[in-house]
């Protein structure tokens, strides 16, 4: 059996970590064809995918209509290639969450979001209720379409490159059009794959104060995260939000600063290996999941910590 894995590229570069983690999730299901749906200039991404363990072929579709990840042409492409695959998977990124449910509907099957364990060809675990429960579900559909929570899996290694085959994009239905990306380019590690994450919450108080969080993160070579409150208040950009409806992370070290620990936030970080919480309220719920709790004022603790590291 073969898995079709939809990979994401960003300006011609493969989202390698997400793909490598998804490959380890689907490894028990058979060999994998990675599908790259991108604008012209994705050959390098295809080559990179071809050298990841478990990939038996890379399908490369390059077309202007696929450049910006619009759902309609991308879903139409996946559907055109779907025949013969028992599984269609992708990392649970905003890119794939937008596309795969549409694919599933067009194939008249259900989609499974955020798979955290693969038990067999039709049996999967996924979290529900903000991670307060885990369901084991058995798919009765002829094709299982699912997204993978990458933080639950390690990345596969390298292999001798598999072949790359060009495939044709399907005609763009022209239902939507790209206008603009306001992407924040950052030198910091990506949230989803960082070894250390430092997150700030409402307690940080302002966008200016958030600099202290960023300084601590930079001292640690860490990614920066935020609670929903911090994002809503404009202290941090939306793509830093960690939680049920933001990003899910599981770094070796997660430092929560001025975050109370609402279940929606815990849903995005409680599988971190080591959790440190810094909060002035000794009853803050975040302390119930923290390995190390430091009660006190973040405005004195965080600079001191950054200075001593």
């Amino acid at each position, binding site marked *: 059996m073969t898995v079709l894995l939809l990979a994401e590229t960003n300006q011609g570069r493969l989202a390698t970590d997400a793909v490598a983690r998804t490959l380890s999730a689907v490894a028990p299901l058979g060999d994998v064809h990675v599908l790259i749906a991108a604008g012209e200039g994705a050959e390098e991404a295809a080559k990179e995918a071809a050298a990841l363990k478990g990939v038996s072929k890379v399908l490369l579709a390059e077309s202007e209509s696929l450049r910006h990840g619009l759902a309609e042409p991308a879903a139409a492409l996946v559907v055109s290639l779907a025949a013969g695959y028992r599984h269609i998977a992708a990392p649970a990124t905003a*890119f794939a969450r937008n596309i795969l449910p549409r694919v599933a*509907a067009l194939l008249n099957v259900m989609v499974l*979001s955020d798979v955290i364990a693969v038990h067999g060809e039709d049996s999967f675990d996924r979290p529900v209720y903000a991670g307060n429960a885990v*369901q084991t579900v058995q798919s009765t559909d002829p094709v299982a379409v699912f997204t993978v929570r990458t933080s639950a899996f390690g990345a596969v290694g390298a292999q001798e490159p598999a072949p790359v085959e060009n495939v044709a994009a399907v005609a763009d239905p022209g239902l939507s*059009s790209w206008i603009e990306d306001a992407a924040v380019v950052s030198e910091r590690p990506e949230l989803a794959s960082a070894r250390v994450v430092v997150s700030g919450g409402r307690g940080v108080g302002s966008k200016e104060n958030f600099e202290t969080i960023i300084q601590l993160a930079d001292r640690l070579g860490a990614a920066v995260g935020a609670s929903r409150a911090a994002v809503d208040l404009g202290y941090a950009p939306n793509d830093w939000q960690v939680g049920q409806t933001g990003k899910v992370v599981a770094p070796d070290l997660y430092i929560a600063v001025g975050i109370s620990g609402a279940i929606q936030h815990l849903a995005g970080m*409680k599988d971190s290996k080591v959790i440190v919480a810094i909060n002035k309220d000794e009853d803050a719920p975040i302390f119930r999941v923290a*390995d190390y709790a430091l009660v006190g004022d973040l405005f004195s603790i965080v600079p001191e910590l950054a200075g001593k590291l």
Partner: protein
Amino acid sequence: MKILVPVKRVIDYNVKVRVRTDGSGVELANVKMSMNPFDEIAVEEAVRLKEKGVASEIVVVSIGVQQAKDTLRTALAMGADRAILVDATADVNQDIEPLAVARLLSRIVEAERPDLVLAGKQAIDNDMNATGQMLAGLLGWGQATFASKIEIADGRAVVTREVDGGLQTIGVTLPAVVTVDLRLNEPRYVALPSIMKAKKKPLEERTAAELDVDVTPRLKITRTVEPTQRVAGVRVASVDELIAKLKSEAGVL
């Protein structure tokens, strides 16, 4: 312009969810239920579009048990004009899957012919994040998911989307499906007079059978368990102690 807003009745986001000890699911008896928070945002956006004169009518739809009428009444109180309940099950424990919901909604869309469907990005119970995309696929419509800003002009919606790397703005030709994210707006507080007034607004009932949609789940839930719980660790008295512990005990520095 007519807007259709699907609203789901879910366990209130403040409720501490409990998994039944026999592994059969989550305890839903005697817990507070509310409108899915994302759907509140969708209703609010529709009402604002009506207040601006962009929309002329707002129809809200809920699919599930009879009790979802309460959710519809809340949406009517917020400013929706009409409501449709699709009775799809009598069992409060049966969640209607996104594919079946999307099929039922596509039937309602065929009858109501809205220009825009404004759905939530995700239901906070099943956390699927799928229905809007599935509906758009079934209808052959364009879609714009995870909206934090929506502008309607010249037969299209210009939507700013919250994506992994920041924000993306796209234009989508109407009719279309747009799913809303948290930062689109802050839903209004519903005052008592509006709740009283909403009781007089029309609420129509349909059934899944009548709409000829099979709601049998495609995914069999074989087991529901609580995730492994973390245990609270230790209090450290100072930054020095924290650094020492992270180095020696945890080995993460």
